[in-house]
C-alpha cells in the first residue's frame, strides 16, 4: 500500500474515533445531568410558583418529554449549530464560550511557551555542561515541580512576586482602574499573564526536561553522533546541531497532547488567579447548574482534546518518518 492511502485510512479511522469520543462524552454528560438530584425547572422558573405554573413552564422548555426525546432534540439542535441558552448569562451558550476562549488561549499559549523554554532549555544545558550538580538540581526541581499542585505553587508565587516584591499583579487579566488602549493595553495584559502562565507551565516543563534529557542521552550514543565527535565537533555545536533536534520530537508530542488538555486543564490556575477563561467558566457553570453551558463546554473540551491528539500524531510522524501512523 502506498504511503498516501495508508495515511488517508489512518486519518479516516482517527476522525471516526474522534466523533465517537465527542458523541460519547455528550451522551454521558446529558445522562449524568438528568440523573443528578434536583429539578432544573426551579432554576428556569424561579421558586414559589404553583403546580400548574411549573407544568406549563415544563411544557415550554420541553422538560415534560422523556429523556430520550429530549436527547434527540438536543442532538438535532447541536448538529445545526445551536448549543442552547445559558441560564446564568441569559444569552446563547456558543457566544459565552467564544467570549472566554481568547483568555484561555493567551494563558495556555504563554504557558506552553514557558514550558518548552524552561524544560527543553534545562535539558540542553544539562547535555552541554555534563555537570553532576546541575543534573541533580534539575532532577530535584523537576520532581518537585511535577508533584506540587498549581493552586499552591501559584499562591507561593503570588506571595513572592505580588505581595513581598510587589512587581507583578496577583490576579485578574487587566488593571481595573485604568482604561488602557493600544500598546499600553497589550503590555498590561502581558504583565498580568506572566504569573499564571509561569505557574501553569511548571508541571509540563518538568515532564519535558525528563523526556528530552533521556532522548538526548539516547541520541548521544548513536553512530552519526559518535562520528561527529570523531570529526572533532565541539560539544555545544554537537548538541545543538545533532542531538537537540532529535530530542525535539517527543517534546512536540508532549506539547501537542497538552495543548488539547489546556481548555480544561487551566481551570485550577484560572480559578486561583481570577483569569476569565473557559476552565473558570465551566467551574462556575457547574456550581450554578447551568446545564446547557456545562454540556456545551464538555463538547468543546473533548473535541479539542481529540483534535490536538490527531494533529500531534500527524506532526510527529511528519517530523520523524520512522514513526508510523497506525
Amino acid at each position, binding site marked *: 500500500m502506498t504511503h498516501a492511502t495508508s495515511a488517508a485510512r489512518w486519518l479516516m479511522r482517527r476522525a471516526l474515533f474522534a466523533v465517537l469520543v465527542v458523541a460519547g462524552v455528550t451522551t454521558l454528560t446529558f445522562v449524568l445531568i438528568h440523573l443528578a438530584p434536583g429539578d432544573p425547572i426551579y432554576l428556569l422558573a424561579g421558586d414559589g410558583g404553583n403546580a400548574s405554573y411549573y407544568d406549563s413552564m415544563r411544557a415550554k422548555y420541553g422538560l415534560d418529554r422523556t429523556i430520550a426525546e429530549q436527547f434527540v432534540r438536543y442532538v438535532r439542535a447541536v448538529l445545526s449549530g445551536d448549543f442552547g441558552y445559558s441560564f446564568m448569562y441569559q444569552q446563547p451558550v456558543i457566544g459565552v464560550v467564544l467570549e472566554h476562549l481568547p483568555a484561555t488561549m493567551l494563558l495556555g499559549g504563554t504557558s506552553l511557551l514557558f514550558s518548552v523554554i524552561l524544560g527543553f532549555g534545562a535539558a540542553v544545558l544539562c547535555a552541554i555542561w555534563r555537570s553532576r550538580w546541575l543534573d541533580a538540581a534539575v532532577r530535584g526541581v523537576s520532581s518537585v515541580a511535577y508533584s506540587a499542585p498549581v493552586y499552591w505553587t501559584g499562591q507561593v508565587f503570588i506571595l513572592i512576586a505580588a505581595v513581598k516584591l510587589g512587581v507583578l499583579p496577583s490576579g485578574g487579566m487587566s488593571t481595573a482602574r485604568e482604561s488602557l488602549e493600544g500598546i499600553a493595553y497589550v503590555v498590561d495584559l502581558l504583565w498580568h499573564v506572566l504569573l499564571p502562565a509561569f505557574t501553569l507551565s511548571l508541571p509540563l516543563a518538568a515532564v519535558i526536561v525528563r523526556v528530552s534529557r533521556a532522548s538526548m542521552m539516547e541520541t548521544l550514543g548513536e553512530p552519526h553522533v559518535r562520528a561527529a565527535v570523531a570529526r572533532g565537533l565541539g560539544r555545544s555545536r554537537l548538541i545543538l546541531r545533532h542531538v537537540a533536534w532529535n530530542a525535539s520530537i517527543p517534546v512536540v508530542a508532549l506539547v501537542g497532547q497538552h495543548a488539547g488538555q489546556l481548555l*480544561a486543564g487551566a481551570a485550577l490556575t484560572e480559578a486561583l488567579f481570577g483569569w476569565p477563561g473557559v476552565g473558570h467558566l465551566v467551574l462556575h457553570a457547574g*456550581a450554578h447548574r447551568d446545564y446547557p453551558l456545562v454540556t456545551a463546554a464538555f463538547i468543546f473540551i473533548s473535541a479539542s482534546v481529540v483534535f490536538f491528539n490527531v494533529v500531534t500524531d500527524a506532526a510527529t510522524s511528519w517530523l520523524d518518518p520512522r514513526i508510523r501512523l497506525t
Partner: protein
Amino acid sequence: MQVAAATRTGLLATSAFRRTSGSMSVRAGGIVVGALVLVALAAPLVAPADPFRIAGDALTPPSTAHPFGTDDLGRDVLAGVLHGALNSLKVGLAGALSAALFGIGIGGLAAMCGGLADDLLMRVTEFVQAMPRFFLVVTIVSLFGGHLWLIVLVIALTAWPDTARVFRAQVQSILGRDFVVAARAAGCSERRILWRHVLPLTIAVVGAHASYQAGNAILSEAALSFLGLGDPTVMSWGTLLGSAQFMVREGWWVSLFPGIAITLTVLGCNLLADGLVTESPEDV
C-alpha cells in the same frame, strides 16, 4: 512441579525485593510515604480535638501554642494538616486500590481473552483516556454532592485506563514466554498459570502504577476540595489551600504548610513509582 513453582515465585519475589530496596528513589519515596502513614495514624492522638474547632485568635502567625499558626477563623493549622494527612491517606489508599483493581481486571481480561474481547476492551480504555477526565470528576461531584467515598470512586473510575494498558502489555509479553508454554505443556490450568506464573512477575509494575495512582488521587481530591467541591465534613489539605488563597497577604502560613504537606506526599508517591518502574525485572 508444585514445589518448583513455589520456589520460583519465592525467588523472584525476593530478588525483586532486593533490587527495589537498593534504589535511592524507592528508599526516598518509601520514607516519605511511611512518614505520611505515621503522621496520619498519629493525628487523632497528637491533635485529639476537632480540627474545625476554633482554637485561638484569628490569623496568628506560627508560635509555640500554634506551631503552624491559625487561619482566619482561628482554627489551628497544624491540627488541620495532621487530620488532612489522615484524609489523604484514606483517599490515596482507596483510590490506588480501586484504580488498580479496575485496571488489572480490565487489562488482564483483555490479555487473557484476546481477539474481539481484547479489541473491545482496549477501545473502551482509549475512549476513557480521551475524555476530559478531571472535568468529568468535577462535574459529577458538583452534580451529585461531595461525599468522600463518591469522590474516591469517581477518581478511580477515570484513572484505571493507564494501569489497564500497562498491565495488559505485561501479561501479553509474559504469556508468550517459554516457561508459560512449558507450564501449559505440563498440563497447568489457565487459572494456575495466571496466579503462579504471570501475576508474580507483574507485581513491581502494578505496585509502581498503584503508587502513582495514589499520588494522583490525593492531588485530585485536594483539587476538588480547593474548589469547594470536597466533602464538607472532612478536613482536607485542599480545603485549607482553598481558604488560604484569599489570605496570602495576611497569613502566608495558612498556605505554606498544607502546600508543603501535599507536595511532599505526592513527591513521595511519584518517587516510589519511578523507582519501582526502573527497578522492575527488565526481561519481563
